[in-house]
């Protein structure tokens, strides 16, 4: 029986890719393990192997096609003895082809959940307006990934003392392709592949910063930075104070933070609250590509150790980025992502996705939420939060991290102390659940904060 060959998912967060090249043609016999095609994901070019033997009956997606969704049929494989007409049947008729299994599962919600990681389910990220951009500025669509790379490249061109070090940042072009092209432009002196020794290379970078260099340390994920957290906190964050201002660690620690998709408990933690606890550190967690770019440039120039918390789901998302020679965003300034009068939703990073989706849904029910994107967590723009709450008298915070001692808890305390008389309802903190991240897709989805939970929280504080 002819079977369809489907566009494969080649990484935990891949939703679509480019069918770069076919290495087989119609009529070719393939065996299990033969390389049939090259597929480009947003991270890498991967070889795609046959899992069954047979004859390529028909190629459905031409090479060079971009944006091929995962699970799209890309070719038809014939069994021994079948002729080309079987391929035509398989390609047109879809009743018994494997690709249809997922369609038929639409009737069953739980099955649908199990085919899509939680964070992918929502599709594109909502865009938000920008402030302080000169009139007439042109914009280009850029992914967060590209914006980060451009920010680092621009700063490395500006100052020789800026360098990038981390696992796979050079020859591999970055585990998440953030540093793509940097080795070629800046050479191995400034784009430094390290062995897998987070504690050691973080400490070496701290020493280099003490001596006047400006290291950017990439952690493959902030989960691995726990191995290095003593150097980040005890050495980088505290030295300026302990030396009476004589020397400090002007450097950036960056990498993906928080949940990706289906990577389980040890690769999914959000460290926003952990690092925000520490005097001496600055902590940044942006949402849009423009903020990623502008804040990364500010972080590299900042004379303090900066924790720059990125998000793997956002890496591939596109946003408008201003085409300016030197676009920076100040650290410590929140931004109103959406204006409203009824309630203030405060969030940051990927949390903004839930906040904005909730605001859209609430608007349809006549509740106008003001959505505040903190962007920086330390220093935190509490003035902006208080100002907004004085207008709306209600506040809901949204983050993916754990609920105990969360960023939202801190915001609640600030509001109680500084805006108590303006509050018409208790502040609600929407957070990830108080559990290690489970692997199962349905459980993962519920372990994270969900948009319906944000909507429910807003309705609760607005007494609807």
């Amino acid at each position: 029986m002819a079977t369809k060959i489907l566009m494969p998912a080649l990484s935990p967060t891949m939703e679509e890719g480019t069918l770069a090249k076919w290495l087989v043609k119609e009529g070719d016999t393939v065996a299990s393990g033969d390389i049939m095609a090259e597929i480009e994901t947003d991270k890498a070019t991967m070889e795609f192997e046959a899992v069954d033997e047979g004859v390529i009956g028909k190629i459905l997606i031409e090479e060079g096609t971009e944006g091929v969704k995962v699970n799209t049929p890309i070719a038809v494989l014939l069994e021994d003895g079948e002729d080309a007409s079987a391929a035509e049947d398989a390609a047109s008729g879809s009743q018994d082809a494997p690709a249809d299994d997922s369609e038929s599962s639409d009737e069953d919600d739980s099955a649908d959940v199990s085919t899509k990681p939680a964070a992918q389910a929502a599709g594109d990220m909502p865009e938000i307006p920008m402030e302080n951009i000169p009139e007439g500025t042109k914009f280009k669509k850029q992914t967060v990934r590209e914006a980060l790379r451009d920010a680092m490249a621009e700063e490395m061109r500006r100052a020789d003392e800026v360098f990038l070090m981390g696992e796979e940042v050079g020859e591999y072009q970055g585990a998440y392709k953030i540093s793509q092209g940097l080795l070629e432009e800046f050479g191995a002196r400034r784009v430094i592949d390290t062995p897998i020794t987070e504690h050691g290379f973080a400490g070496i970078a701290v020493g280099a910063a003490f001596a006047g260099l400006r290291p950017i340390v990439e952690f493959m994920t902030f989960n691995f930075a726990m191995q290095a957290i003593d150097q980040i906190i005890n050495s980088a964050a505290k030295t300026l104070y302990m030396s009476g201002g004589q020397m400090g660690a002007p450097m950036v620690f960056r990498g993906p933070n928080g949940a990706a998709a289906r990577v389980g408990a040890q690769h999914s933690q959000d460290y926003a609250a952990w690092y925000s606890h520490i005097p001496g550190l600055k902590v940044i967690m942006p949402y849009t590509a423009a903020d990623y770019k502008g804040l990364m440039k500010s972080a590299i120039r900042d004379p303090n150790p900066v924790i720059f918390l990125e998000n793997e789901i956002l890496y591939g998302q596109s946003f408008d980025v201003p085409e300016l020679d030197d676009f920076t965003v100040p650290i410590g300034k929140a931004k109103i992502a959406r204006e409203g009068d009824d309630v203030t939703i405060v969030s940051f990073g990927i949390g903004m996705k839930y906040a904005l989706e909730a605001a859209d849904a609430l608007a349809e029910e006549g509740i106008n939420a003001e959505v505040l994107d903190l962007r920086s967590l330390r220093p935190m723009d509490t003035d902006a939060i208080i100002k907004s709450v004085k207008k709306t008298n209600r506040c809901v915070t949204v983050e993916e991290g754990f609920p105990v001692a969360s960023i939202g808890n801190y915001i609640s305390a600030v509001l109680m102390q500084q805006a108590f008389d303006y509050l018409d309802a208790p502040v609600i903190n929407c957070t990830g659940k108080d559990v290690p991240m489970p692997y199962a897709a349905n459980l993962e989805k519920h372990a994270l904060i969900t948009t319906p939970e944000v909507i429910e929280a807003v309705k609760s504080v607005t007494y609807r």
Partner: protein
Amino acid sequence: MAAAKKSSKSNVSAEELMSHYREMLMIRRFEEKAGQLYGMGLIGGFCHLYIGQEAVVVGLEAAAKEGDQRVTSYRDHGHMLACGMDPKGVMAELTGREGGYSKGKGGSMHMFSAEKRFYGGHGIVAAQVPIGAGLAFANKYMGTDDVSFAYFGDGAANQGQVYETFNMASLWKLPCIFVIENNQYAMGTSLQRGSSTPELYTRGEAFGIPGEAVDGMDVLAVKEAGERALAHCRAGNGPYILEMKTYRYRGHSMSDPAKYRTREEVQKIKSEKDPIDHVRDLLVTGKHATEDELKAIDKEVKKIVSEAADFATESPEPALDELYTDIYA
């Protein structure tokens, strides 16, 4: 300490011997005074004295040149004095006063001098080792011929980050001298009870880092070894390990009851191996100095230490608004 290399004692000038004597004596008198001030309640917290180990820093600083950097653990007073930091500023930091190197905000374990290229003063065992390699990384990156000294103890030599650092320092040929000050005890745990292999200078072999054991009670042997290590690093050959076989006379910190070793053991080292007596003997038997000249040095050193103690007790406590300065640059 049998395996450690002795000095050949050739070509040492009287002037050089006198200088070593004076600097080691300065550290010892300073530390004795610090112990006294601790007893009087003028120094608080943890206070780790360097008495007995003076030859290590004095010998290595004699081999170093302007521009070389150093970083060490919390047993750091000797390193600071040896690299030329002002005893007044160091003592005032111990007493937590405005005139201290860190304006009283660092304390005994956390002190720095950008001017003297002293990068701390680190309270977390072995954290200074990758930092020292990072200083060397910067030297190589900027193309200078400076070398960094990363000092750590026999206890720190068992920490994981030391070996992560050895690997990268060797891989990248960083000009870093790893100085293991083996004073035989990691707090109360003897080397034999804490280290599977007691020859710590061999710990770099797996990473291709040459090492040697040195009689750390002999300042001339230390200096010679330092010169070898510096030549190796400056020639671009990567890091070098010096295991200094030394001994601390006092407890781990001021609050150490020292039940883990006998008085006799300590007394034997003091009478047979004291690094200051050793140089004094060389000066006297070689007729390089008279007893009167040595007494004059003793007197001068005592005066400097006494003035440092006066400064440290008279300097005011930091202003309260210092609480909120130097958190961010």
